[in-house]
């Protein structure tokens, strides 16, 4: 396993890129630590597949270098990089047995048969495939086949990293969590460098210790799932992580008060002080679950109109209008919903400020 370094990588599919808009990847400068479980999360078109192909060697970046444990591999093809990949659809030999499928990458490298045997048995055990070893791959379910694909990556002791590209797409929803659990277990057990590419926030956040959120060719934030949820660095992260996404309201600052139209919202002193120094258009941000909703006027409460109530069973989502703008709030299942007016409070410790889309925060 290896540390993977992306040094000042940028990529354009156009021969002579003129401006930032011509780049599929703007500037990626990042290190994947040896043994980490990472996810690369973003909507389609954000550049994550381009980045994955640069890591695996299918694509040479137009700028920058790729280093594995300090060794430059920028121009090397995938087969020279010791990378294992698991794709959306299982890649295996249907007519071979499970055992032979798992043994294939080793036999291909002329590994001694007794070592092949011990590796295959070990990997089959980890993946709960031992009872299926003698079966033909063709007859197995999609999730078993995907486990074999994964096993073909794990069986090699020399792989630098395993890359996953939307590996659970073809798996039935109720089986997905078993495979997610299996992947996490394998990571804990073997301490492999795993990079998981997906547009699905459930998969990214469940799988990874560190999630990188990509947006328009940039990594806008790297953090634990909890950090991304609690302290999104960018309005895109606030929107993309969490359901519904964070509320954003354009505002101006007067002292430690955010003005949204004619409404005043008191901010945390430090946030306000930083906000007064920040450049760019200001927006206030709050998660729907942190917005307090009251059925009657309360101290500091802002009157809002209730536009819609969505009962999702285990909780309710309220759509409110504040100064003509839509704000969502999340209420527990058993909390009564006021009729058509409510009063909301923005707890200062949960209320963030963004300038030109970036979180206003202390430097460093």
């Amino acid at each position, binding site marked *: 396993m290896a540390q993977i370094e992306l040094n000042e990588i940028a990529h354009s599919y156009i021969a002579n890129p003129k401006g930032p808009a011509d780049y599929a990847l703007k500037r990626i400068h990042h290190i994947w630590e040896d043994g980490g479980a990472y996810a690369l999360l973003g*909507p389609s078109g954000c550049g994550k597949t381009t980045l994955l192909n640069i890591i695996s060697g299918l694509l040479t970046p137009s700028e920058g270098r790729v280093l594995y444990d300090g060794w430059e591999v920028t121009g090397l093809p995938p087969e020279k990089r010791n990378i294992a990949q698991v794709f959306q659809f299982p890649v295996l030999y249907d007519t071979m047995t499970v055992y032979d499928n798992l043994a294939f990458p080793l036999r291909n490298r002329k590994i001694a048969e007794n070592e092949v045997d011990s590796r295959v048995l070990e990997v089959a055990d980890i993946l709960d495939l031992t009872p299926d070893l003698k079966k033909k791959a063709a007859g197995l379910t999609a999730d078993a086949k995907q486990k074999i694909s994964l096993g073909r990556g794990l069986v090699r002791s020399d792989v630098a990293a395993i890359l996953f590209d939307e590996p659970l797409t073809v798996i039935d929803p109720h089986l997905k969590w078993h495979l997610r*659990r299996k992947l996490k277990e394998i990571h804990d057990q073997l301490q492999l460098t795993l990079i998981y590419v997906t547009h699905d926030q459930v998969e990214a956040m469940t799988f990874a210790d560190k999630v990188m959120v990509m947006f328009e060719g940039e990594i806008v934030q790297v953090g634990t799932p909890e950090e991304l949820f609690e302290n999104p660095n960018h309005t895109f992260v606030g929107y993309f992580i969490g359901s519904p996404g964070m509320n954003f309201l354009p505002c101006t600052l007067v002292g430690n008060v955010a003005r949204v139209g004619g409404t005043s919202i008191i901010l945390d002193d430090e946030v306000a002080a930083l906000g007064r120094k920040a450049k760019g258009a200001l927006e206030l941000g709050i998660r729907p679950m942190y917005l307090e909703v009251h059925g009657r006027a309360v101290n500091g409460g802002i009157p809002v109109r209730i536009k819609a109530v969505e009962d999702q069973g285990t909780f309710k989502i309220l759509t409110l209008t504040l100064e003509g703008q839509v704000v969502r709030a999340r209420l527990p299942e058993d909390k009564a919903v006021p009729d058509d007016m409510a009063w909301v409070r923005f707890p200062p410790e949960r209320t963030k400020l963004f300038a030109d889309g970036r979180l206003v925060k202390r430097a460093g």
Partner: protein
Amino acid sequence: MGLVLRNVDKTVGGETHLKAINLNFEPGSRNVLLGRTLAGKTSLLRIMAGLDRPSRGSVLIDGRDVTGVSVRKRSVAMVYQQFINYPSLTIYKNIASPLKVSGMNNAEIDRRVRETAKMLHIDDLLDRLPAELSGGQQQRTAIARALVKDAQLLLLDEPLVNLDYKLREELRTELQDIFQRREAIVVYTTTEPAEALMLGGNIVVIDEGRILQTGPTPDVYHNPATLKVAEVFSDPPINYLDGRVNDRYAFLGRDIKIPLSGHLRRLAPGDYTFGIRSNHLFLFRLNAEDAEITAEVELSEINGSETFIHINHYDTFLVVQDVGIHPRKIGSRISVFMNPASLFVYDSSGTLIASPSPGSLAAGR
């Protein structure tokens, strides 16, 4: 318009797809068909639309038998899971296509196309081709085409299933508004409990081609008549604990002892299955009467703004829904708490015996 299905069966190559379907859809009603994949939802929609003929039974519209009448002669519009549009036609022409065949004049077609496109926020894409649009925009086009002709029966077959979750969120809310402004019978199929609840109206819970329960959507959610309905109508899946009741206590799982009070008071001694939804299991004690369940963490799944913690209580697998993003380490021991007032009770045949009374659930979240 009213739509009635009477004793409808559908068999294909000896395999039963639908069995003994009796349903009555009132004019202007909102209806959800909830069921897992392959439960028979699409088969049922196709029979309603007139795309397929039932093997047995009849379909009545306003009291008139239309069983053999083709879809072309019915006032019906349908939206499919896949984004189906004419690839060589512009978005404008795609939306206009159902009106063209009806012989409507061009000025009226133009007015309707623009109005419908505006409603679905694709009015600035009318000159494009479907392939130039994102998945969400393509499905908006398909929905616009279904809405433009004001059909009396509007059928939507899991229309959001192929969209990513942010687009789903958006369109789900918009569809609510759109349906409210329609006089058609709307029938919407889904596998997702949350989607069913948001649409409200009436629900038909279907499994293996049979109707399990019907009624106003929230009522069915709060009183799932059988274990199967509770399973289909809970996401994450409802938790089950086997238990035995004696004169004064219920014993659940390995070591959970609950005094019989509230809706459990009149339970006769015997064996039961107790159900509890994952959002009624807590990581902290809320009430003195809460029962404690000790377990080991299997996985923390993060979904939107929730963490679903899969736990193992002596080989009984449960899911706890925690608000916010708080993953727990695999293999760690935890205690979870439940209020006995939030338990559903099923007898050995899987029939609902007692359900939590509304308002009895612990507040505090």
